[in-house]
């Protein structure tokens, strides 16, 4: 009995030694992996003002936009602001599974950052501009529960709001239609939100080290995680580019039933809503010349059956600070997210789902490595 115990101990010790040796093995990258790593930078990405929003990039609009972002007077009951859910100290998110305004909504609060790089907004991409997306929570009865008339009344009746409006827009709010006034307020809110950017991260240093040979001391677990991310994990295909998103929509096998038994249609519903919306990029409220607006992806968007159950690929920049994860906030930690992809049930995918999505069957060590890498973003 004693010899068996000793034998087991020796075996365990050898296993530990082998695992340690493998763990410390120097990681090398193929040319295609290096190309993907390069594509994740440089950071930050230079951006231009939004042509559909005449206040985009205006210092005055950004300043007032920040005040309005924190102003509860824009909500129906005067008790909620954009910052109620998009809290700066929580990376402009709220840490909750699903957002709660006047009542609980169906989806997780998206952390606001690097928004000027998006071509679609919201989990279902129901907006093709940031200012249009900013209108939805204002009007949604479950969120801020306002109306264009309520917002117009507040701007007209509060002296500070009225003075700011007149100074920035050059029009007495009394002579504006409520709809125009609300759109202008949304554009000013967008001007501020565009300025929320994540700083260069530890990953950006690692990227330079790996691709340009710059020296960096880093945990090998992170480097192994990076290799999984751009290699076997194929994460980079959807979480592509400097902002770690291809900006599009995919079905990743998450449940899409809502509390009431209805289905969250995801991207399918998003396209339908955008088509009906008067607030789209080529619409009457946009400041962009029509020829330019018609040369944008949203002009060519296509409604497909496969869009059911698809949700926007979120950016992974700053991801360790924006838990919980996924459109419905059901995955609490990055470990949960990695486990999801490791054991993804492809039977749950929509019939036209991604054939590239297969369970990764990661070892515990690989899960740890991938999480260590994600934490550098």
């Amino acid at each position, binding site marked *: 009995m004693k010899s068996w115990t000793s034998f087991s101990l020796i075996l365990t010790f050898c296993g530990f030694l082998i695992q340690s040796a493998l763990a410390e093995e120097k990681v090398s990258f193929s040319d295609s992996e290096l190309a*993907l790593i390069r*594509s994740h930078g440089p950071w930050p990405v230079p951006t231009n003002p939004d042509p559909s929003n005449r206040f985009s990039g205006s210092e005055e609009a950004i300043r007032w936009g920040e005040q309005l972002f924190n102003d509860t007077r824009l909500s129906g009951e005067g008790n909620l602001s954009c910052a109620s859910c998009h809290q700066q100290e929580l990376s402009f998110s709220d840490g909750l599974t699903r957002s709660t305004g006047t009542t609980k909504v169906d989806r997780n609060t998206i952390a606001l950052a690097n928004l000027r790089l998006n071509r679609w907004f919201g989990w279902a991409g129901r907006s093709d501009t940031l200012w249009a997306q900013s209108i939805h929570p204002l009007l949604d009865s479950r969120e801020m529960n306002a109306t264009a008339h309520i917002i117009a009344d507040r701007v007209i009746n509060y002296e500070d709001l009225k003075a700011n409006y007149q100074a920035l827009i050059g029009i007495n709010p009394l002579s504006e239609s409520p709809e125009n006034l609300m759109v202008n307020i949304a554009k000013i809110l967008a001007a501020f939100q565009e300025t929320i950017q994540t700083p260069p991260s530890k990953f950006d240093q690692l990227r330079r080290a790996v691709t340009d040979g710059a020296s960096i001391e880093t945990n090998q677990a992170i480097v192994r995680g990076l290799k999984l991310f751009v290699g076997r994990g194929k994460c980079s*295909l959807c979480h592509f*580019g400097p902002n770690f998103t291809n900006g*599009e*929509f995919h079905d990743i096998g998450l449940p899409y039933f809502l509390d009431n038994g209805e289905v969250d249609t995801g991207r399918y519903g998003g396209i339908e809503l955008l088509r009906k919306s008067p607030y789209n990029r080529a619409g009457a409220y946009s400041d962009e010349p029509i020829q330019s607006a018609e040369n944008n992806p949203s002009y*060519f*968007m296509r409604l497909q059956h496969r869009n059911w159950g698809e949700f926007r690929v979120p950016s992974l920049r700053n991801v360790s600070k924006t838990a919980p994860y996924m459109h419905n906030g059901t995955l609490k930690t990055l470990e949960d997210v990695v486990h999801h992809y490791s054991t993804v049930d492809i039977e749950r995918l929509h019939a036209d789902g991604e*054939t*590239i999505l297969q369970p990764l069957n990661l070892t515990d060590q690989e899960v740890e490595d991938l999480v260590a890498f994600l934490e550098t973003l």
Partner: protein
Amino acid sequence: MRYLFSFLALCLCGFSAAAQSACLDDVEGTNFLLMESDGHKIVVTPNPQNKKVGELFRVEISLCHLDSEVTKVSAIMPAHGHGMNYRPQILSLQPGLYKAEGFLFHMPGLWEFRLETRKVETDGQSRRLRFQKKILITP
């Protein structure tokens, strides 16, 4: 008026020359895409030429000597089982020369460009040709 006609004729010649030059057989190795079906060759020229993931682009399609019209254009990722999230619009510029706007490849990897032409024959029968060619979109 005479000058105007001359100017228009010159423009037309220029266009035809451009279309014709895109039909040369030695376009391999350039950014042209030479596609073949049933012995017919057509040439597709992307603009901008260096296609990047996530960027909108258009193509010019020269049917060369094929007397047909372009009826469908699309692109798919065979390994992923999906196509583009966008539907390009086809515009006829002149007989045999088309423009298709609204292409966007949202992932790096191997894409397959697909195109269909149709000609209604004198007996009322439709003659369709399907062209396809793989394109590697690098990160």
